[in-house]
């Protein structure tokens, strides 16, 4: 019913568009330039405000009446029940009214079901009529306004501007909401566990012995996780920075146009591979290979190792670094290259002495963005790095990372309310670190832009 109403509103808007446009055309007659706004703006303005009015009434009405119905259902219940019982009765009643299965049946539940049925019928019909009515009213009003001096164009554009502002606002508000909830939960966690224990403790086993819901402050030391993350990030950057940077230099200054046209898309394909694929590539191909190679030369490499995860993560980051570095290297003006060649410098000397120093801030920011990706990367380490919080600097052993532990906490079978605490604290730490890296990188890029624009 309500979707039919929405459809009808849209049909009205469409009709309004053509009617208003037709009227404007008729008003213009042989001299359409006398109209302040072209007919299409008159049509657009009427259509858009009709949709706004109709759908606005529908959505707002739905929210408000739902709240009202809820309140009516609860206030009709017999007195003297606990909150859980009341919730149960209401949800069962609603289920009955919808023809679904209820956990139990009874008089109170039937009463709720009957009331709910009556109210929703009323709600649906009322809202449908109200929204179509509002749409028709706005439509008529809009059609009356069509005249030669009417500034439909300015008004239409103001509405577009409002839509754009709202879209931007949604993005910002969501971010603020997520950060606020992260921060709130983290503060709750730290009100139970001292911050120092979390940041500097070396034993991580937060869920051992939490059956009574309280954590042992000595078992939530996140240092092993930070160390594991750091170790894997360092290995990843050792792979990604040289390969990425050198391939960027090759692409920008050595490759022929033909080679470039083949290699650049290939690198971009590498960037398009889902991280989960990298993850099982690391776990199934690279880790066993490293273990067997290690065994062959007498090294003991565990089957889940920081090395395997780090190397594959490095491969994942290569296109990221090479593509950004390629951009900044290409942005170094040709005149600087010419200047250097003109003094009798070779290509390699020119790159080392002129191009790289000029592009350095941009390259640094590419590296920093790569680091922040490595720190936040989850899939590869979940599959290839291991689970045990093992404090070691040996890349051949299994380590665990912040992201792996968040996954373990949230997907494990401990109650969410207990496991969420440390997960939020870890998530917040991760957020802060990557935020710092991203801001740092952006500042470097801005500084770099000031030099050449």
């Amino acid at each position, binding site marked *: 019913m309500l979707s039919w109403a929405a459809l009808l509103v849209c049909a009205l808007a469409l009709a309004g568009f053509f009617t208003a446009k037709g009227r404007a055309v008729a008003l213009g007659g042989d001299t359409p330039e006398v109209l302040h706004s072209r007919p299409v703006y008159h049509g657009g303005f009427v259509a858009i405000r009709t949709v706004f009015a109709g759908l606005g009434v529908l959505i707002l009405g739905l929210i408000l009446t739902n709240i009202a119905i809820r309140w009516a259902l609860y206030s009709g219940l017999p007195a003297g029940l606990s909150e859980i019982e009341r919730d149960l009765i209401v949800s069962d009643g609603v289920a009955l009214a919808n023809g679904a299965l209820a956990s139990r049946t009874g008089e109170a539940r039937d009463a709720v079901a009957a009331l709910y049925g009556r109210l929703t019928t009323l709600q649906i019909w009322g809202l449908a009529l109200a929204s179509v009515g509002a749409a028709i009213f706005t439509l008529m009003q809009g059609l009356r306004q069509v005249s030669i001096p009417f500034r439909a164009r300015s008004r239409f554009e103001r509405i577009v501007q409002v839509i754009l502002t709202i879209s931007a606002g949604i993005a910002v508000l969501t971010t603020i909401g997520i950060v606020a909830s992260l921060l709130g939960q983290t503060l709750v966690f730290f009100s139970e566990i001292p911050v120092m224990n979390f940041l500097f403790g070396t034993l991580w086993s937060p869920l051992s012995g939490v059956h009574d819901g309280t954590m042992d402050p000595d078992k939530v030391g996140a240092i092993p996780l930070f160390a594991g993350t750091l170790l894997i990030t360092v290995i990843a950057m050792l792979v990604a920075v040289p390969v990425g940077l050198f391939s960027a230099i090759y692409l920008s200054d050595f490759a022929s146009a033909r080679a470039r046209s083949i290699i650049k898309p290939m690198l971009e394909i590498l960037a398009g591979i889902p991280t989960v694929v990298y993850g099982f590539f690391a776990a199934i191909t690279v880790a066993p290979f490293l273990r067997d190679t290690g065994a062959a030369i007498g090294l003991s490499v565990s089957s889940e190792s920081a090395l395997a995860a780090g190397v594959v993560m490095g491969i994942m980051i290569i296109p990221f670094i090479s593509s950004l570095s390629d951009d900044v290297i290409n942005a170094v*003006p040709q*005149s*600087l290259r*010419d*200047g250097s060649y003109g*003094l*009798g410098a070779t290509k390699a000397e020119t790159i080392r*002495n002129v191009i790289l120093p000029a592009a350095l801030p941009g390259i640094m920011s590419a590296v920093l963005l790569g680091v922040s990706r490595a720190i936040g990367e989850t899939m590869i380490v979940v599959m290839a790095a291991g689970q045990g919080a093992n404090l070691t600097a040996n890349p051949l052993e299994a380590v665990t990372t912040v992201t792996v532990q968040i996954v373990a906490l949230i997907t494990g079978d401990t109650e969410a309310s207990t496991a969420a605490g440390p997960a939020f604290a870890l998530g917040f730490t991760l957020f802060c670190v990557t935020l710092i890296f991203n801001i740092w990188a952006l500042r470097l890029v801005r500084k770099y832009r000031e030099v050449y624009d």
Partner: protein
Amino acid sequence: MSDPIKFHCKGVDVWYGDTHAIKDNDIDIHDNSVTAFIGPSGCGKSTFLRCLNRMNDTIDICRVTGTLLLDGDDIYSRDVDPVQLRARVGMVFQKPNPFPKSIYDNVAYGPRIHGLARNKADLDAIVEESLGAAGLWDEVKDRLAAPGTGLSGGQQQRLCIARAIATKPEVLLMDEPCSALDPIATETVEELISGLGKRYCVVIVTHSMQQANRISQRTAFFHLGNLVEYDTTDAIFSTPKDERTIGYVSGRFG
């Protein structure tokens, strides 16, 4: 005008892909003097200039044929390393292009690459001498560590000239060195070029006929890839022979 011949060019052709940019040109460029290349835009004068230090080699689709002798040696011969050649034939570009380094490092760039200085004192001497020759020493001697990009346009161009001189070249090629400068900076740089012409073989491409007239001893007029007329500057501007030269120097086209 009996300066020795520095460049002897015969039957030079240049193609950019399928475009025939320079058509069978012969020219002898003399040492210890300034030679100006003039002509309308797209006539090939810059292209020809860039043949003289093989800068065209950096463009993939560019092909150069013919004979270009520097002191009697073919610069397009297989034995010649273009990188070594460019140390002998320095170049200054249209837009000042100091490296994003200090003033000192800009000038020391060439000497460091070619190992011209045995020690720091040597290098200091070269830098001072080059900046002095470019008339910039007094202006920058107290801030050699400041970035070269922070200088004014005219100073930047003189810094680029100092940078070119520092590699101790025999020839200086200048591709419209004053076109990005204001009139006062232009005057300073022109005086500098006139002075350099006494010690080096200077070849300058310019759009300004007054400039060619003021600073050069010989002038070559290019048109549509052809070297139309080449003579002393006085002769080109007072008694040009070719119709096209007459038209151009009198301002009727170009």
